[in-house]
């Protein structure tokens, strides 16, 4: 129940801020001191996500920076994931953005760039090659818009992983799936025992999207994966339609837990289904490991959690080593901040973000920071199996696709998520899905 209490606290924190932001709207610009998310003298403001385990690490990094730089402190404010997505857009639109903007890069970042709301960091990275070189090169893709870097890649690499509950596999006497065909064979076996084959927090919609992403990646490879994001008409490609059909077939075969459309991922209820033995498998981000460690009691320590990369699909042309997810998280600097605030933010990026101390904290929670040269630290961790698995995926994948809803601009992303939830509800056909998407992609 800690999550829901946190949620209430976040609301309490959010309310006065909204009030201040509204009050500041009419009378003062973003440069006025102390208003909402605006500036704080020569320090800087920073909004980021709440919830375990990331919240504590982000806060610790801010605190370390503040004790090292008492004159240019950073004031952090936390928000719950889905609430943050709305809040940050509104704040930026109202000219009340924090100095440091936490984000996912990709299409969202592009919309900030097009509105001239974030700083171009290309030359700064040129002058601070050491900062650039200590990060995964693959993480810069989603930070780059039209050849210029607009964000500092930060935190962890987060591929989507297929998790499974080993105890439940033992219970029905089955082996972990080697191919997607194996998965389809497992579905009726688990259902017969009253165990849901897959857990899914379907109300959040991006959770459903992960399934489509892997079908496309395995069926048509990264080439198809990219085409449906950019090329007009690509969703009607026969391979694309096959991926959509496979999704509906899995729903019809009762592949997902009963009531999946009403489960939200923000409450971590989908993960509880896995570690409490109500669902056998789950497709989820690599961050889920840390949540299962902290919420799942003895589940992970007892070795009951299994994981793998999404298996190959029969007849698919995609490389089974490819993956999708978040190549990193991204910190941008508001172009509306004062010169002193921007300086503080850059100093924060240089000295505090992914410092050795922060790296250690991420590793301790079972995540792989996007820092290079952490292999020995990963190997020393109690979670070294999972960490090496994630590090291996991130370094071996020829193509690390960015999650579709983050890669697209927000308007197209909303259409995508909307249609995906209808696809999973079986209320539209694969062909209707393709037609709806073709209208918004590649215009």
């Amino acid at each position, binding site marked *: 129940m800690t999550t829901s209490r946190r949620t209430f606290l976040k609301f309490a924190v959010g309310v006065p801020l909204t009030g201040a932001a509204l009050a500041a709207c009419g009378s003062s610009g973003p440069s006025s001191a102390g208003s909402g998310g605006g500036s704080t003298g020569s320090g800087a403001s920073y909004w980021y996500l709440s919830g375990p385990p990331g919240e504590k690490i982000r806060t610790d990094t801010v605190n370390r920076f503040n004790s090292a730089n008492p004159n240019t402190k950073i004031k952090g404010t936390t928000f719950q994931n889905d609430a943050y997505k709305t809040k940050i857009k509104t704040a930026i639109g109202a000219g009340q953005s924090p100095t440091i903007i936490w984000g996912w890069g990709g299409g969202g970042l592009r919309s900030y760039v097009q*509105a*001239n709301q974030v700083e171009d960091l290309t030359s700064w990275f040129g002058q601070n090659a050491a900062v650039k070189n200590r990060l995964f090169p693959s993480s810069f893709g989603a930070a780059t818009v039209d050849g210029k870097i607009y964000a500092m890649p930060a935190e962890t690499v987060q591929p989507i992983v297929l998790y499974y509950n080993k105890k439940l596999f033992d219970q029905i006497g089955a082996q972990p799936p080697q191919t997607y065909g194996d998965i389809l064979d497992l579905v009726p076996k688990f259902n017969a025992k009253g165990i849901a084959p897959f857990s899914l927090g*379907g109300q959040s919609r991006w959770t459903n999207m992960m399934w489509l992403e892997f079908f496309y990646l395995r069926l048509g490879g990264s080439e198809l994966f990219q085409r449906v994001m950019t090329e007009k008409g690509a969703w009607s490609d026969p391979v694309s339609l096959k991926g959509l059909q496979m999704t509906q077939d899995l729903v019809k075969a009762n592949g997902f837990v*009963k*009531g*999946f459309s009403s*489960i939200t991922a923000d409450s971590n*209820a989908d993960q509880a289904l896995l570690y409490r033995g109500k669902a056998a498998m789950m497709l989820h981000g690599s961050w889920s490991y840390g949540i299962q460690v902290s919420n799942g009691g003895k589940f992970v320590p007892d070795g009951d959690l299994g994981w793998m990369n999404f298996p190959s699909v029969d007849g698919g042309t995609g490389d089974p080593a490819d993956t999708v997810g978040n190549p990193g998280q991204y910190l941008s600097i508001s172009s509306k901040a004062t010169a002193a605030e921007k300086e503080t933010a850059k100093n924060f990026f240089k000295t505090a973000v992914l410092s050795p101390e922060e790296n250690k904290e991420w590793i301790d929670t079972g995540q792989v920071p996007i820092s290079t040269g952490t292999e020995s630290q990963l190997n020393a961790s109690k979670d070294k199996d999972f960490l090496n698995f994630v590090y291996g995926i991130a370094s071996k994948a020829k193509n690390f696709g960015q999650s579709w809803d983050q890669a697209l601009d927000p308007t197209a992303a*909303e259409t995508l998520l909307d249609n995906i939830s209808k696809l999973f509800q079986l209320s539209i056909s694969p062909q209707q899905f393709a037609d709806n998407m073709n209208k918004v992609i590649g215009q």
Partner: protein
Amino acid sequence: MVLPALLIFLAFGVIPLLGALGLSFTTWDGIGAIHPSGLTSWRATLTDPGLPHALYVTFLIMALSWAFQTPMSLLLGVFLAGRQRYRAVLAVVYFVPLLLSSAAIAITYKALLDPNFGLSAGLGVGFLAQDWLGRGRLAVGVVIFIVSWQYIPFHSLIYQAGVRQIPVSMYEAAQLDGAGRVRQFFSITLPQLKYTIITSSTLMVVGSLTFFDLIWVLTAGGPADATRVLAVQMYIKGFQGNQMGPASAIAVILVFVGLGLALLLRRLGGDARESQTEGA
């Protein structure tokens, strides 16, 4: 006393309304500059197949929740209008749901209705393990039930007050004429409550246009778009899809639907100045 009220109405009613109207003639992604674009946003909104669906869901929830709430509130109100002490106690108990915030109610019901961890698992009652919020029709039904659960107390209170306004002499006369309780209800109570019913119905109907928080927390408009009422459609367009122009157009449509309904109900009520107790 008129001037302050007028100023507040201007500041918080008229000016934002004009702002939304203005925004509906622009394209704005909510982040960058605002570009005037004539009727583009309106055309996009009016040709969007999501709009008729949202209107349908809005009116469906409005009509069904009215049809469910009105008889329930009326009967409860009549029952509570008695002067016995136990009824006063019951009235307080019935009133509790209205004191809770819609968000809290939604979170609670969401937890109770969870097919895996909710009431069904807690009580071990298999029947309760339906996919309450995951199937379109069922989710609409759940929304109507929770809305009714929340607002029936308020409307019962209105009816209770209405019933207590009816002169006791009318019932005494009816009793002398040998009319039973049922006869009294249909011949005296119901006709005398005409304006109360209209007031209560207006509040229900116009109020149902503003259902947002409950639905958003409970289903987020889902599953798919089964419970996506106009207000939710507006929020999704504006704050998730970054389309403030079409979102503002939906806001304007909402205002006109609300005004239209309020005027219509006034019409149905006839001339409110005629005496309710005429002929008594």
